Each structure stands twice: as structure tokens, then as C-alpha cells.
């Protein structure tokens, strides 16, 4: 009997991202679902979290009463804890780490992604370049991190696909995405293709393909997410 359909929560999406981190990686978490990843990392992963504001080695989100107004993640407002061995650098040195290519993975939110690894997350219209938008550090990260993981809803509120043959919005980077975690699927991006790796409880490959704007190659290891 088919399992009941159960889209992933934001926390579950963050947990899936956390599962995809390698031992000892240096990881940058963007605003939104990604910043929650810090709550799902295990000590044995020995991940070092790096933030654009120069905090290196932060830990989980600060609990009630643990907040220090001077210790926040890339959201600039969310209080986090520091792990032993944390260090602080200024903004230019924080981006020196990024541009040198030391970030093993950057996790970002996105509006759209394509099989060539391009994605869009900074502008919601196709109006000509008008210097309006919110780039933040996403372009620096996307240009320089070894991998880009995205966390995003699989479709728009109107049900339109966000995984597309080609991004229709202005891109944040023309390549680099290797993994997309949505509320219904986990999709690897490899060799110019979307590879469907995992599904949320109750979703079939056909159902996921039906709301995806580009062909999905179903992985031989296609399976239910384990979070």
C-alpha cells in the first residue's frame, strides 16, 4: 500500500543537507533553511561552519537564554553558539576564505535551478539590470565554493516547477550546483543532468517528474529520505 504523502519540513530539508556533509568540511550556510543545518550536524562530522560576517566555527542556533547579541550567523539576526576553537575575522578576511576556495560546500536557498548547475536566488524579475536586488554573499560563495547545495521548494506557490531546463531568472552563478534538496525530493546535479536520488515519504518518481521542468534521471539507488 502506498505510503501517505508527507512533504519534508524545513527542518527535515536541513537534516538532509547535514547528511550530505563530509568529515571535516568547511561549510557556509545561507539565510533560510540552510542556517538551520547547524542544528543537525553531529560532533563526529567535525564540520567547521563559516559565515560571511567572519565567524568561523559556530555551532547550533542559540537556545532561550543562550543568545549573545554579538554572535549571529549569516542571517545577521539569528543568534548562534560558538564551538570551542571558534575564531573571528573581519568581513574582507571572511571573503578571503571564500575566494581562496576553502569552502567545501555552500548551502543556499534558490528560486530556480537547471541541470547545468546554474541557479537563481537574488532577483525575482527579468527586468533589465537596474541595480536593485539582494545579492548578499551568494555570488562570491557560488563562484568560489567547491560545491553548491540548494534548499528550495520544489515548485512555486502556483505549482510551477523551479527545477528547469534553463533558469528564466537572472542567475547567481552559471554553474556549480551539485545537490538540490526540495520539500519532495533530493536531486543530484551531475554531468549536465538532474539525477533523482531520494523522495519524500509517499512520492513516486513519476509524481516528482510531473512537477519538474526538466528530465530527471532516476538513480539506481532511488530511495525514501531517511530523516
Amino acid at each position, binding site marked *: 500500500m502506498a505510503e501517505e504523502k508527507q512533504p519534508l519540513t524545513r527542518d527535515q530539508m536541513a537534516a538532509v543537507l547535514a547528511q550530505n556533509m563530509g568529515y571535516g568540511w568547511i561549510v557556509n550556510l545561507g*539565510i533560510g533553511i540552510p542556517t538551520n543545518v547547524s542544528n543537525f550536524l553531529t560532533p563526529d562530522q567535525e564540520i567547521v561552519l563559516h*559565515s*560571511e*560576517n*567572519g*565567524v568561523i566555527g559556530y555551532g547550533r542556533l542559540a537556545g532561550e537564554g543562550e543568545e*549573545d*547579541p*554579538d*554572535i*549571529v550567523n549569516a*542571517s*545577521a*539576526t539569528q543568534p548562534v553558539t*560558538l564551538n570551542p576553537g571558534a575564531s*573571528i*575575522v*573581519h*568581513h*574582507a578576511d*571572511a*571573503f578571503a576564505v*571564500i*575566494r581562496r576556495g576553502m569552502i567545501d560546500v555552500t548551502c543556499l536557498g534558490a528560486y530556480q535551478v537547471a541541470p547545468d548547475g546554474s541557479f537563481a*536566488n*537574488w*532577483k*525575482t524579475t527579468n527586468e533589465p*539590470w*537596474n*541595480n*536593485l*536586488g*539582494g*545579492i*548578499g*554573499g*551568494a*555570488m*562570491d*560563495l557560488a*563562484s*568560489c565554493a567547491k560545491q553548491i547545495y540548494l534548499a528550495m521548494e520544489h515548485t512555486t506557490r502556483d505549482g510551477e516547477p523551479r527545477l528547469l531546463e534553463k533558469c528564466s531568472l*537572472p*542567475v*547567481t*552563478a*552559471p*554553474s556549480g550546483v551539485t545537490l538540490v534538496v526540495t520539500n519532495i525530493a533530493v536531486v543530484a546535479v551531475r554531468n549536465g543532468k538532474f539525477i533523482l536520488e531520494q523522495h519524500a515519504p509517499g512520492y513516486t518518481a513519476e509524481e516528482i517528474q510531473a512537477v519538474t521542468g526538466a528530465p530527471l534521471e532516476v538513480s539506481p539507488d532511488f530511495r525514501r529520505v531517511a530523516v
Partner: protein
Amino acid sequence: MDEAVASFPDNASLMIPGFGPGQPTNLLAALWRTNATGLTTISNGVGFESADPDQKGLGDLVMAGRVKKVIAAFTASTRPSRTGTAEALVANGTLEAELVPQGTLAERIRSGGAGIPAFYTPAGVGTETATGKEHRDFNGRAFVMETALFADYAFIRAHKADTAGNLLFRRAARNFNPIMAMAAKNVIVEVEQPIVEAGEIDPDQVHVPGIYVTTLVRIPVGGVLHINRATGMAIRQTA
């Protein structure tokens, strides 16, 4: 605070640090109380507006038409549902905006402070932000040329300072503060803790050498130390 910004001229350029913490809130509120206008600002975002007179900041100056140009990594809201502070003004032509990737912004400021007029970065290559800019290949990879930023003024928020002007920052409140302090002609600093005598800060621990600093002011009792973003409430200096 008011004295520190009393001679702030019209049409000056101003660096404003802060990324959540580390904002020179009290100097900005004092600037709001002057008549200074025609500003060009360099900051991470265009800032919030506030009804609290002690929290008046860049967002308020922008909305009051006192800012001519903003250079920032966030010139508009990323949320389609929420219109950013600057968008309408840019649309009607009364505000100029220059949108810059945040790392490029930080490096342009650091370059301004380091006497480097221009540099190459990979950030933004292949996107609209690099359109029309000069590109160049190094070792087979494409980079875009970016130029330095240097301002007439920087408002700085420090945690500690000594009478020689040496500054220390605390945790993530450091962010843009050290590089902006290096990249402006006049550097005005609001300090959280009492200012100590020169010699009381270990030279190895100084984050910004005093030679960069023009004016030091301790945040007075009642001044704003932090703003709780969740509640919008100011946490104030008590002694």
C-alpha cells in the same frame, strides 16, 4: 554624539558598518538630527526604518531623501512579498543604487584602505552584476575588475578603545568595522566600554590601530548598545 557629527557636511560619502551587530546606531541617530543631506553611503544593506528617534538610521535617511546614492549588497528585499526601502525611490529616479556582491564590496573597501585602486575577483562572473565590467583571464579562469571604495567619513562601533584610538571589536560585531575604519578620511567611533588609557590594551590584540581614528566617543548612559531584532527593542547603556 551630536558634537561628533556636528560639522558633518552635505554631499559627503559615508561608510556604515554592521551586519546585525556592529552598527554605529548612536552616530547614525545623531546624523539624523543634523541637516546633512546628499549622502553617498557604503554599507551592507540599505537598512531599516524606525519610529524610535534613537534608532533612526540609514533606512530613515534614505526615505527622507537625504541620500543620493547607496552602494550595498542588498539594495532591495530578497522577498518578493516585501518591497525594500530603496526600491520606489530608485524607480522614480531620486535615489541612485549600486548593487555589489558582498565579498566584492568588502574587498573594494579593504582595497580603498590599502591604497590598491583596483583588483580582479571571480565573484559575479557570468551574472548581470559583471555585465559591462572589464573581464580578464588568469590561469584560464575569468575574473572581473573591481575598483576601490574610499569615503569621506566612516562611522564605527567599537567594543573597547584606548586614548590612542586603538580599537577592539567583540565577536560578530567586528564585520565591516575594521576595513571601513581603514578606508575613510574621517573616522568617528562610538565605543561601548569606558575608554582606557593608552598602554592598557595589549598591542597584539588591537583590531584597528589608533592612527586611523579621528574621533572617539563613548556611548552615553541611555545610548543604544544593541537592538533586539525580534522585538525591535533597544538595549541601552546603563553605566
